[in-house]
């Protein structure tokens, strides 16, 4: 499901991936401004996640001179300088300007170097926005993974590292997988090393952040032979279905995990029964049908009355993940109802 957040700069989408690779350097081949506005965004978001050090991003600082005469040489210099810092990986992201003048970024990235260099084509004017950059970066990085003997474990694919509550969403999925007794193999890509990425092929199931990541899921299915579930769990019923589906994919009997989660959900709902018969209203025009579906599911369960003029309650985008996400949401609803 593409959301309005998936529009925007292709480069930002790719950076949300490459800056999550530990001990890597990202080079943006284009004007300094392309790097600057993205770096400001990443710096602010990293700070909000209590990361002390901003991500290492280098701009080739392309000017009119490079536009006219070609900019491959300054990219080569930037790759050389970055390699001297001995990172595990250098990611090279092209921009609209470098692509428009036809710089052969791929060829520069193929020049033998002591450090692996990967090119992520991210010229936004060629089509696609943030989502296209996110997908392209994941597909480009997947070349470091090989088919391996699979063990019962799960890769998390395409976590949206710039979204609010990314860590909470991860912890919820981890909790649910623990109920099934299955570990997370690789978070592709969120705070991982290149070495961890190379072990991507050892998982027996990929769980996509949401259906917009299906092109990556399909690519990994073809290249590594790993099947996928197309979304993190959303909604109460959806969370139970997720456990059931993941269990079946992993050849694990999910009934105990489902029963335990169902009990937890009942207990949680029980903690909010004082909201019964409260009048609520959803945002005037929720952009996604799925969000209002989960909202009505919750309202039915708590016997809330959804009507115009009711207490306005949020239906966030992205919708909170799993049972814990619903709990956080209900706390917010309660504050609105009692305000």
């Amino acid at each position, binding site marked *: 499901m593409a959301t309005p957040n998936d529009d925007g700069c292709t480069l930002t989408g790719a950076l949300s991936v490459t800056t999550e690779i530990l001990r890597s350097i990202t080079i943006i081949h284009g004007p300094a401004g392309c790097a600057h506005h993205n770096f400001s965004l990443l710096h602010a978001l990293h700070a909000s996640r209590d990361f002390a050090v901003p991500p290492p991003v280098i701009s080739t600082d392309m000017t*009119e*001179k*490079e*536009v*006219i*005469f*070609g*900019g*491959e040489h300054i990219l080569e210099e930037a790759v050389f300088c970055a390699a001297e810092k001995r990172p595990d990986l250098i990611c090279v992201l092209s921009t609209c300007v470098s692509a*428009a*003048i*036809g*710089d052969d970024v791929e060829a520069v990235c193929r020049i033998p170097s002591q450090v692996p260099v990967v090119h992520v084509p991210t010229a936004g004017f060629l089509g696609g926005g943030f989502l296209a950059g996110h997908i392209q970066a994941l597909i480009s990085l997947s070349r470091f993974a090989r088919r391996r003997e699979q063990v019962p474990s799960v890769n998390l694919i395409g976590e949206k590292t710039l979204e609010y509550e990314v860590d909470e969403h991860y912890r919820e999925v981890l909790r649910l997988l623990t109920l099934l007794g299955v570990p997370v193999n690789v978070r592709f890509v969120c705070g991982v090393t290149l070495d961890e990425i190379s072990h991507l092929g050892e998982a027996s199931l990929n769980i996509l952040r949401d259906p917009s990541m299906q092109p990556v899921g399909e690519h990994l299915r073809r290249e590594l032979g790993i099947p996928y579930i197309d979304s993190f769990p959303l909604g109460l019923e959806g969370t139970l279905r997720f456990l059931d589906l993941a269990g079946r994919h992993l050849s694990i009997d999910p009934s105990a995990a489902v029963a335990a989660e169902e009990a937890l959900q009942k207990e949680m709902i029980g903690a909010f029964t004082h909201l019964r018969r409260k009048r609520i209203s959803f945002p005037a025009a929720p952009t996604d049908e799925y969000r209002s579906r989960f909202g009505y599911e919750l309202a039915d369960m708590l016997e809330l009355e959804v009507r115009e003029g009711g207490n306005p309650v949020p239906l966030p985008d992205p919708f909170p993940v799993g049972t814990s996400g619903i709990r956080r949401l209900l706390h917010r609803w309660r504050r609105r109802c009692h305000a």
Partner: protein
Amino acid sequence: MKQIALYGKGGIGKSTTSANLSAALSEQGLDVLQIGCDPKRDSTRMLMQGRLIPTVMDLVRERGDDRSLTIDDVVYRGYHGVRCVEAGGPEPGVGCAGRGIIATFQILERLGALRADVVVYDVLGDVVCGGFAMPMREGYAEEVYLVTSGELMSLYAANNICKAISRLSSRARSRCRLGGVICNAKNLPREEELVGEFAKRIGSSMVQFIPRDQVVQQAELNKKTVVEFAPSSGQAAVYRELARRIMENRRLDVPVPLDIEELEALAYGYSE
């Protein structure tokens, strides 16, 4: 000040025609500035006794900054005082030559170099991008002359350039118009008639027929324009006539490009 631009298919003889035109104009006592707008940088070579002058883009590349450039760095005086500028550009296969033309024009504007009785822009083969349409934009050439032979591909390129003139002239403040067609002959049968008819069909006229003559080759081997090398020749007289006609030309048209079938049928009709 009169600003004119010569456009046409690569190799058709634009630079030869431009250089001889500039030489002939200068003999009329006019202050002439010729600007080569092609990374090949050889537009003004025959005016400079075979010398390839430093290009504006060369200087930008060497100095890394255009703010230190002066007029004397980029403008060179050639035959009979014709002032010569070469835009230059990137090596083949890299960068963006069109942007180089735009940057050159900005530098020349800043230096106040675009002042003369006549400015002659000699532009690369086809209007491949916005950069090469720069000489047609507001404030630059108000008269475009198409240089073509009777060969179909040459007419095809000329017709394409008409599309650019037509598009640009539709802008409210644009003063760019087609001044006419120059036939630089390849000695094809009925060539003058064909190019004349082509000019008529696109809503213009043929301002000059330049016959093919060995003296052009001889002059180039001697690194001179025909006007300088063989001033009494018939060919030099033709270039002087072209200069006179262009200076007297008052007919400026918005061309109507032909569709490809029409163009092919026209060329076919004169092939027998």
